[in-house]
C-alpha cells in the first residue's frame, strides 16, 4: 500500500485510491454497450456488430458501420459541445435545435445555385435579387451570424434580466422555430452550390466535430475562459465576489453555444443538400442527453468535453445497434429511453462506488 502524506501537513493520503476520472466511467459504459450489441449480434443475427463478418470490407472492421456510428452523431455532437459549456455554467440551452432550423434556412438561401439542369433554381429564394452562386463564405458568414445573434440574445437575457436559462432559451426555441418557418413560408430550400455541398459531404462532419471537440477541450482546460466557466457553475455568487464578470462571461458562453449550433446547421444543410424549417427539432434534448451521459452535471461545474464526445458515441452506437439488430422501431424508442437512463445510472453508480472505497 503506497501510503503517503501529501499537501501541507495533515492526514494520511493514499495516492493509489485516487478517484477515477469521470470520463473513464463513461468510457466503460460505452465499451459495455458495444459488447452487448456484439454479443446480441452473434446470438440473434449470427453476425458481428463492429467487425466485418460478410467480407465486405478490406479491414477487419465493418467500416461502413464505424463510419455511420460517428457520422450520425457528429452534427448533434457539435451542438453538444456548446451545450456542454452552457451546462457547465449551471445553465441550459433548449434553443439549439431551433437555431439549427433557422440558421440552416437562412444560410442555405444564400448558398443556392442559379440554375438546375438548365432551368432557374425551382427553390430559389433570392433569384430575383441575383444572390445566387455566391462564394461559399457568404452562406457560412450569414449562418454563423444567426448563431451569434440567437446565442447572444440568450446570453444577454440570462445574464442581464436574470430569468432562468430554461425560460430564456425556451423562448428562443419557440421564436427561432418561428423564424425558420417564416423565412421561406415553410418551403424547403434546396440546390446549394458545389462548394457549399462539400461542407457536410462524406466524413467532413466528423472531422469538424472532432476538431471542435479538441479545441474546446483545450480551451476549457487551459484558459481563463474555461476556469471561469467552471467557477460560475460551481458557485455563481463566489465567482461574482471573486471579481469575475459573470454577466459578460455568460453572454460569451451562450453565444459560443449559438455559434456551434449554427455550425451544425451549416454542416447539416450541406450534408442533406437542403434546408427545411423542421430541421433540428428535438436536437437540443439529444445534445443535452449526450452531455449528461458524458458526465456533465446539470448543477454546473463538473464534467468535460471528452465526456460529451463519449456520450455522443454512446448515442451513435445505440442507434446503429438497433438497426443492426432489426429491432422493431416501436421498441427502439422504448428501449432508447431506457438506455439513456441506464447509461446515467451506471455512471452514477460507478462513481459512488469509486467514492466509497
Amino acid at each position, binding site marked *: 500500500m503506497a501510503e503517503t502524506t501529501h499537501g501541507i501537513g495533515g492526514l494520511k493520503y493514499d495516492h493509489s485510491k485516487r478517484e477515477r476520472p469521470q470520463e473513464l466511467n463513461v468510457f466503460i459504459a460505452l465499451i459495455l454497450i458495444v459488447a452487448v450489441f456484439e454479443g446480441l449480434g452473434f446470438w440473434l443475427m449470427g453476425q458481428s456488430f463492429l467487425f466485418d463478418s*460478410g467480407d*465486405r470490407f478490406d479491414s477487419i472492421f*465493418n467500416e*461502413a*458501420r464505424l*463510419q*455511420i456510428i460517428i*457520422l*450520425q452523431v457528429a*452534427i448533434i455532437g457539435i451542438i453538444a459541445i456548446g451545450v456542454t459549456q452552457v451546462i457547465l455554467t449551471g445553465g441550459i440551452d433548449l434553443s439549439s435545435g431551433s437555431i439549427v*432550423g433557422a440558421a440552416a434556412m437562412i444560410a442555405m438561401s444564400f448558398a443556392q445555385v442559379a440554375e438546375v*439542369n438548365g432551368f432557374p433554381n*425551382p*427553390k430559389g429564394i433570392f433569384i430575383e435579387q441575383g444572390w445566387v452562386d455566391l462564394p461559399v463564405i457568404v452562406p457560412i458568414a450569414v449562418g454563423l451570424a444567426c448563431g451569434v445573434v440567437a446565442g447572444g440574445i440568450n446570453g444577454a437575457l440570462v445574464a442581464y434580466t436574470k430569468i432562468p436559462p430554461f425560460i430564456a432559451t425556451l423562448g428562443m426555441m419557440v421564436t427561432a422555430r418561428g423564424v*425558420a*418557418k417564416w423565412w421561406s*413560408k*415553410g*418551403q*424547403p*430550400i*434546396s440546390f446549394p452550390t458545389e462548394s457549399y455541398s462539400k461542407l457536410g459531404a462524406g466524413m467532413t462532419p466528423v472531422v469538424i466535430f472532432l476538431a471542435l471537440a479538441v479545441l474546446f477541450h483545450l480551451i476549457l482546460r487551459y484558459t481563463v475562459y474555461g476556469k471561469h466557466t467552471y467557477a460560475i457553475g460551481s458557485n455563481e455568487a463566489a465567482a461574482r465576489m471573486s471579481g469575475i464578470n459573470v454577466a459578460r462571461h455568460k453572454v460569451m458562453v451562450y453565444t459560443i453555444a449559438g455559434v456551434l449550433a449554427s455550425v451544425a446547421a451549416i454542416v*447539416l444543410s450541406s*450534408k*442533406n*443538400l*437542403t434546408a*427545411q*424549417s*423542421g*430541421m433540428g*427539432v*428535438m436536437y437540443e434534448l439529444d445534445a443535452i442527453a449526450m452531455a449528461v451521459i458524458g458526465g456533465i452535471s446539470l448543477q454546473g461545474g463538473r464534467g468535460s468535453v471528452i465526456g460529451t464526445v463519449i456520450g455522443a458515441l454512446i448515442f451513435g452506437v445505440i*442507434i*446503429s445497434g438497433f*438497426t*443492426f439488430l*432489426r429491432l*422493431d*422501431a*416501436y421498441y*427502439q*424508442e422504448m428501449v432508447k429511453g431506457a438506455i439513456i437512463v441506464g447509461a446515467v445510472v451506471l455512471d452514477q453508480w460507478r462513481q459512488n462506488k469509486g467514492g466509497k472505497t
Partner: protein
Amino acid sequence: ETIGVSMAAFDDNFLTVLRNGMIETADGMDGVDIQVEDAQNDVARQLDQINNFIASGVDAIIVNAVDTSATQAMSAAAESAGVPLVYVNREPINVDELPDNQAFVASNEIESGTLAAFEGCKMLRAAGYAGGADIYILMGELSNQAAVQRTKDFHDVISMDMCSFINIVDEQTANWSRDEATDLMTNWLSSGDEFQAVFANNDEMAIGAIQALKASGVAMDDVIVTGVDATQDALVSMSQGELDVTVFQDAAGQGTGALNAALALAAGEEVDQKVYIPFILVTPDNMGEFMGAN
C-alpha cells in the same frame, strides 16, 4: 430478401395506413423481411437511417421522404453503395434524374388541395354564395410540405375567376391536430364574424372544426367543411352530414406498390421508374366506396 424502410413519421395517420399496408403485404410473402424505421420528421435522421441500412447490408431501401427536397443526398448514398431505392408517397425532387436502380411510387400533392378546394367552391356556389363567401383555412404544420402545398392549392383555386367570390377571413395553423383545430375554431367563433366554410389541410383538423362548431350550436348544414385523407373518422362524420368534402389517397396501394418495386429492383428486374397514384375526390355521393380503405 431484407428491405429497409424509412418512414417520415409513425404518428401520422395517413402514413400509418400506408406503413401497415406494406407490412401486411410483406408478412404474406415468403422470405421477405422488412425493417421499418421512424424518421420522426427529421431529414437528417432519415439520411442516417439509410446509411445504417447500408451498413447492415439490406437488399433494398424504401423511403417515405420527410422532405422531398432532401432526396438528392439519399439517392447519392444508395447509389454509391449499389443498393436499390424506392421512394413512396411523396415525389422526390430529383425524380427526373433517378439512377437506374431507383424508382418512385407517389402521388402529386397538388391534386389533393385542389380537388378539395374546388369542390368546396362549387358547393358554396350551389348554396347561393356566389356573391361572396367568407371562409377560414386550417393549415397543417407549417414546416410540412403537404401543408404548405395544400394551402397554396387552396389559394390557387380561390384566385381562379370561378372561385374568386371567396374571401379568406383568416388562416392559421393547427398543426394537423384535431385538438388544436377545435380550440382555434372556438377562438374564431368567439369573435362572432360570419362565415360559410372551413377548408382544412386534413381531415383531423376538419373534424376538430366540426366539433367546435357543434359545441357552439352552429347548424352543420349552414357551413361547408372540407378535409383531405378520407380517414374512417372523416367518413363517419360525412355520413352524419357534418363533413362535406374529403380526398382519398390509396395508402395501402402505395405501400404495396413500393414494396413490389423494391423487390423487383433487388432481384435485378426492370421496373417502371415513375408510378403516380392519383387522389380521388370523396363526397357523400361516393363515400361508400372508401369505407374501410384508409
